């Protein structure tokens, strides 16, 4: 009987092979009294040195195989073996209590591990695994055992373990290991990060369910869906062999689009950008070859803390992102707080209707100090790349003018102080309120760009809360009413020689991209993982042809009609 387990998809891929169970060696050292603490301390030092020599070897192999960034974890391990809180404390304990080195080290390490595991931060809990890894190695040396024999695997396998340490993962023999499954761990575990850079399929955090898997069990590992099938049926094996081949073909094809320009079949250049919510997302944006950042949500700077971020703090974050994007455009949205996003230290009064209340630019124009601090940080950062500032939730021209007046004042102040501000800095607005979409031709004269925020635009146009399941059916991005509004905005921008972009979920939707392209959208900002599929899709589309097709779609009566029409067109082109 086959059995299905689910876990976190830590590194995508599909693998089919026999299981190899890696048993954790977790013996707790016995306490012994020693007569000669000085000799015992020397024994610890020698074991630490031997462990360091091992780790250094792993570090060198990793450096060759995966490059300096991945090898860094082992430098950190070497460094931990010099840590006074670990080593000096252990030496002190051997001296003061006259106990054996294994026992003392285990005691000291356990209390550090416990402290790290009790943290409410996942990254820190992961560090507990590092301490366990290195002390396990030293204890093995003290006991005269070999640490682990992962490199000795010699047939195609999927590794099953409670957890994999970074050194386990780095030593995997890629000739034979096709993937791994662990009971604990998360997407940010070191083993998960390593798996992604080794492009090895991995599902982590399955819980104790995986403890029943034995060496020799047949396994289908579908790490695209986070599923593990133990002892599959012949039918499942056939099905997944096909899926595996398809997935690998798709991956190879997508990867070939990383460095290609975003150009349509009829030679129109567009911009495929990414949305980010923090600095952590940058790596994925760069790996997927995005043409820029179309929406940088700055709320993370303000949330989860007890006071406002300073100008300096914000400046270094903006500068960092601009520099990382190396001349590609970065659209930074000014603070969009209020609505469902609250800041405890701002102490805003409760509103009856927060989504229709004082949020985003409305709040910023009221709390001017808060706004000015952010604008100054942005203006200063503008010298480090291609910055575009975007104001959210503009409903009427007056708000835009007021925001621009404040921006101009801060700019003048900075320049008086002798601080340089970029001349090519762009200023635009998010179009997410129907009033702004309808008056887009008026607004277009006073901005450099529009970015259509479809998530809010749809909910305000349909007067339906997206989160309310009983009205969720009204969330219809492809509805002709929405398409008409989008068309108004794009036409207004294009008529005034400004560019129009979109940063809602719709921009990465393969059934919306052809229509948006046909309507004349220039910039599409989406999650990083959608960029390559979008680039591939765009390369097959003719803008001229879709201009006509989009015009037809706009004249339709329902979303379903539009969707059927688009899908049919795409199928006939494929």
């Amino acid at each position: 009987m086959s059995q299905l387990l689910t876990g976190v998809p830590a590194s995508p891929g599909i693998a089919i092979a026999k299981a190899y169970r890696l048993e954790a060696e977790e013996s707790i050292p016995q306490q012994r009294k020693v007569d000669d603490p000085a000799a015992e301390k020397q024994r610890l030092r020698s074991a630490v040195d031997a462990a360091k020599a091992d780790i250094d070897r792993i570090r060198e192999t990793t450096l060759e195989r995966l490059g300096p960034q991945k090898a860094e974890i082992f430098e950190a391990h070497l460094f931990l073996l010099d840590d006074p809180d670990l080593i000096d404390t252990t030496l002190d304990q051997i001296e003061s209590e006259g106990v054996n080195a294994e026992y003392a080290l285990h005691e000291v390490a356990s209390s550090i591990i416990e402290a790290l595991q009790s943290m409410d931060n996942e990254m820190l809990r992961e560090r507990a695994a590092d301490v366990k890894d290195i002390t396990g190695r030293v204890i093995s040396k003290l006991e005269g055992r070999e640490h682990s024999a992962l490199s000795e695997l010699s047939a195609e396998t999927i590794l099953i373990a409670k957890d994999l340490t970074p050194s386990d993962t780095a030593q995997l023999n890629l000739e034979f290991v096709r993937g791994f499954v662990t009971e604990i761990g998360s997407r940010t575990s070191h083993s998960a990060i390593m798996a992604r850079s080794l492009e090895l399929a991995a599902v982590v955090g399955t819980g104790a369910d995986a403890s029943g898997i034995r060496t020799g069990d047949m396994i289908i590992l579908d790490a695209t869906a986070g599923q593990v099938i133990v002892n599959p049926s012949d039918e499942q094996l056939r099905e997944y062999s096909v899926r595996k081949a398809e997935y690998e073909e798709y991956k190879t094809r997508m990867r070939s689009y990383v460095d290609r320009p975003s150009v349509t079949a009829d030679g129109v250049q567009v911009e495929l950008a990414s949305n980010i919510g923090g600095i952590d997302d940058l790596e994925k944006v760069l790996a997927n070859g995005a043409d820029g950042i179309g929406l940088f949500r700055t709320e993370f700077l303000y949330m989860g803390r007890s006071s406002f971020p300073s100008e300096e703090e914000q400046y270094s974050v903006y500068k960092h992102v601009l520099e990382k994007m190396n001349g590609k455009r970065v659209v930074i949205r000014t603070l969009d707080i209020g609505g469902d996003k609250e800041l405890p230290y701002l102490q805003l009064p409760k509103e009856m209707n927060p989504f229709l209340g004082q949020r985003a630019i409305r709040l910023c124009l009221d709390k001017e100090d808060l706004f000015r601090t952010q604008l100054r940080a942005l203006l200063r950062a503008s010298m480090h790349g291609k910055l575009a500032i975007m104001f959210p939730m503009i409903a009427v021209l007056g708000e835009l003018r007021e925001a621009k007046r404040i921006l101009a004042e801060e700019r003048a102040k900075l320049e008086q102080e002798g601080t340089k501000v970029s001349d090519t800095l762009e200023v635009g607005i998010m179009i997410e309120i129907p009033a702004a979409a309808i008056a887009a031709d008026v607004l277009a004269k006073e901005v450099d760009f529009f970015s259509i925020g479809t998530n809010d635009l749809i909910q305000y146009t349909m007067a339906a809360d997206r989160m309310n399941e009983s009205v969720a059916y009204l969330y219809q991005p492809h509805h002709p009413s929405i398409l008409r509004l989008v068309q108004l905005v794009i036409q207004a921008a294009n008529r005034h020689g400004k560019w129009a972009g979109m940063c809602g979920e719709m921009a990465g939707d393969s059934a919306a991209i052809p229509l948006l392209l046909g309507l004349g959208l220039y910039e599409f900002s989406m999650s990083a993982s959608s960029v390559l599929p979008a680039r591939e899709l765009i390369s097959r589309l003719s803008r001229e042809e879709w201009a006509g097709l989009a015009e037809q779609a706009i004249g339709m009566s329902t979303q379903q009609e539009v969707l059927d029409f688009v899908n049919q067109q795409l199928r006939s082109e494929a």
Partner: protein
Amino acid sequence: MVSQTFTVIHPQGFHARPSKLFVEKANTFPCKVTLFKGEKKANGKSSLGLLTLGIAAGDEIRLEADGEQEEQALQELGQMLTKIYEE
């Protein structure tokens, strides 16, 4: 003895890499280096000590340097607390 409070801005907080760089720098000074976060304190020359403080972005950390070159240590290590690192 000198001390000053700094706000950490590195978005991922002080983990493996920043704490390693911090400790390496701390070890270049002869003075004693101690970090305080609320009630908790840690040896600034131990990266494990730093990690167990669980320093997150936005945390206020009091840095104390005591002994030879304490002024310079406070200034240079303070800078390390308030910068963004490549991860």
